[in-house]
């Protein structure tokens, strides 16, 4: 919030993927900033572009993808920087945790080696010193009996343990920013809880920035400072987490919150629904991408360029032509009214 440049600054990012049926506009003009030590949630359904956004930042794009715009990390544009310079940033500056730790870990390399590899390369420390640090890291991420675990292979560990190892690897070079892409989706609730607590703990103790990507609204709500909501490659709403969840402005955010069952809201037998399905990412609607499914749609929604983010109170921005509610009112009460129409 001060004059200091943000840790990560994404400006008008487009990530398109060429297919035989035309380009898939995975990310289509998205801007996002993450300050040092800040936790930002990135929420969206499948096909919203949230994971592709993270992959663009990490340079993990498929062969046939192209990008435009800029991704400034600590002043370096990750899109144009040389492969070598980018490799030098991945690890010590920014690291990523994936959804499926079972696949992200190398199955034939011992845990210890996978953790120490990056430290030896990036921090220039000896293997034995890295080994000692690895024990400390595993203790930090809550792996019991860490010294013995170092000689284990990934298949010898449970899903929760593997995700802890992934986090330990990501933390090994003390990154300034950790991008966690659906880190708990494959895990059971009690284990998910352990991993989320762990991420919270390391973030606050290390003052690290965190981008938490998830389809689960409830998961992001309790543990981020700000949240950005994506739909079909566009960012539809962005702002302080409480503001976005308490008083959603965009019709999509509002409908998504209302159609997600939660233990926080009164029990309703019929859930509120969002009609229809996600648009074809090759031929998105011309104006607001949510317009075809929106109950408040007017002709104005179909004009090209109407879905730009509009400024709001305290940095709560939205891209809706017909924003819901007034800031300050609780929109959640509306969620209770069950939708009576058939699908």
């Amino acid at each position, binding site marked *: 919030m001060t004059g200091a440049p943000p840790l990560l600054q994404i400006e008008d990012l487009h990530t398109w993927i060429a297919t035989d049926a035309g380009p898939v506009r995975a990310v289509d003009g998205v801007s996002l900033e993450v300050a040092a030590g800040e936790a930002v949630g990135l929420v969206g*359904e499948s096909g919203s572009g949230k994971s592709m956004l993270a992959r663009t930042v990490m340079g993990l794009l498929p062969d046939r993808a192209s990008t435009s715009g800029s991704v400034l990390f600590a002043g370096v544009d990750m899109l144009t920087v040389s492969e070598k310079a980018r490799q030098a940033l991945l690890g010590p500056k920014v690291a990523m945790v994936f959804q499926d730790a079972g696949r992200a870990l190398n199955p034939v390399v011992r845990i210890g080696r996978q953790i120490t590899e990056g430290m030896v390369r990036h921090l220039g420390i000896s293997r034995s010193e890295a080994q000692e640090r690895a024990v400390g890291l595993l203790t930090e991420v809550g792996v019991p009996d860490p010294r013995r675990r170092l000689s284990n292979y990934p298949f010898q560990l449970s899903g929760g343990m593997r995700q802890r190892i992934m986090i330990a690897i990501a933390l090994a070079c003390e990154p300034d920013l950790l991008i966690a892409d659906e880190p708990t989706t494959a895990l059971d609730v009690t284990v*998910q809880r352990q991993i989320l607590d762990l991420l919270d703990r390391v973030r606050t103790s290390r003052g690290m920035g965190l981008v938490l990507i998830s389809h689960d609204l409830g998961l992001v709500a309790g543990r981020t400072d700000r949240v950005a909501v994506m739909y079909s490659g566009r960012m539809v709403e962005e702002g302080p987490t409480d503001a976005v969840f308490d008083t959603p402005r965009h019709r999509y955010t509002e409908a998504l919150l209302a159609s997600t069952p939660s233990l926080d809201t009164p029990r309703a037998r*019929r859930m509120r629904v*969002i009609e229809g*399905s*996600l648009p074809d990412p090759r031929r998105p609607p011309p104006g607001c991408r949510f317009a075809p499914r929106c109950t408040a749609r007017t002709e104005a929604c179909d004009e090209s360029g109407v879905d730009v983010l509009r400024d709001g109170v305290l940095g709560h921005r939205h891209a809706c032509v017909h924003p819901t509610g007034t800031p300050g009112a609780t929109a959640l009460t509306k969620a209770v009214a069950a939708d009576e129409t058939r699908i």
Partner: protein
Amino acid sequence: MAGTGEAHLLVDAEGTVLSVRHLQVEYRTPGGVVHAVSDVSFDVRPGETLGLVGESGCGKSTTGKAVLRLEKLAGGQVVYRGQDLASAKRGTLRPLRRKLQMIFQDPVSSLNPRRSVRELVVEGLTIAGRPAAERREAADRVLADVGLDPERFGPLRPRQLSGGQAQRVAIARALAIRPDLIVCDEPVSALDVSVQAQIVNLLHDLKDEHALTLVFISHDLSVVRSVCDRVMVMYLGRICEVGDVDSVFAAPAHPYTRALLDSVPRRRAAGGFPGPALEGDIPSPLDPPSGCRFRTRCPLATERCAVEVPEVRAVGDGHFAACHHADAPADLGRVPVSV
């Protein structure tokens, strides 16, 4: 035996659609015998939606499949309206089976990719050798029932459908043979949030229209709370707690149920969660703990838990738990108002 006890069972079996008694499922693996489901008994009442919840490896899906004899039973009875499916011969089983249908988690995998939607939804009728005219009429009817236009969707193949549409086709296929009970195995877990609600509402409507009884298997407690009338919580192949959704969610009696509920991220709670985290991992089903299977992770565990298997006993009105330390909650009187 463990998580056993019969307090939660109806004495009068007439009032049930399905009575499962001492269900046992085991797998032989090179590492030993996996005790997937151990001595599980429960009733499904006509017209209700019974939720089966628990984490992976708790045996909820296996229980669902075993009830339909899609898994080999190692023991127990599954009585459907007075007839035991567990001991039924192939000939008697076949017509009974059609009354009990199943909807799977992965809608695309549950549809044969070589068939059109129209062929898929009447597969049950084709198998029963019904005439083409009846099949055509049924296809139109059930597709309309699940909100798919027969003209537009009839000729499509499964790969041309979205996840939500494919799940509607799977539901239509089950409906076409007029079942009595449908076991829904994580029917919305693979779907996007915005589509999930559509399917949940659809199931809810169809249940009323067709007088169905549902067994709803899910790991998502929030969905179960909104969909189910009663809920059964399982851990490592045993029952922990059974009861009306309102009382179980408002006042969980079993420490595992409490831990599960405390692990669901909540917006209003400080730190995102309402209670302490559960430590450790689920033990191996090859060698489950003696006594109460939850005792290795239980904050209340005592010596008794290692020796004696807790029986299911009443802890409130229509609320039962299998725990030595579960007392009838003092605040049972104030069951929260549901909307």
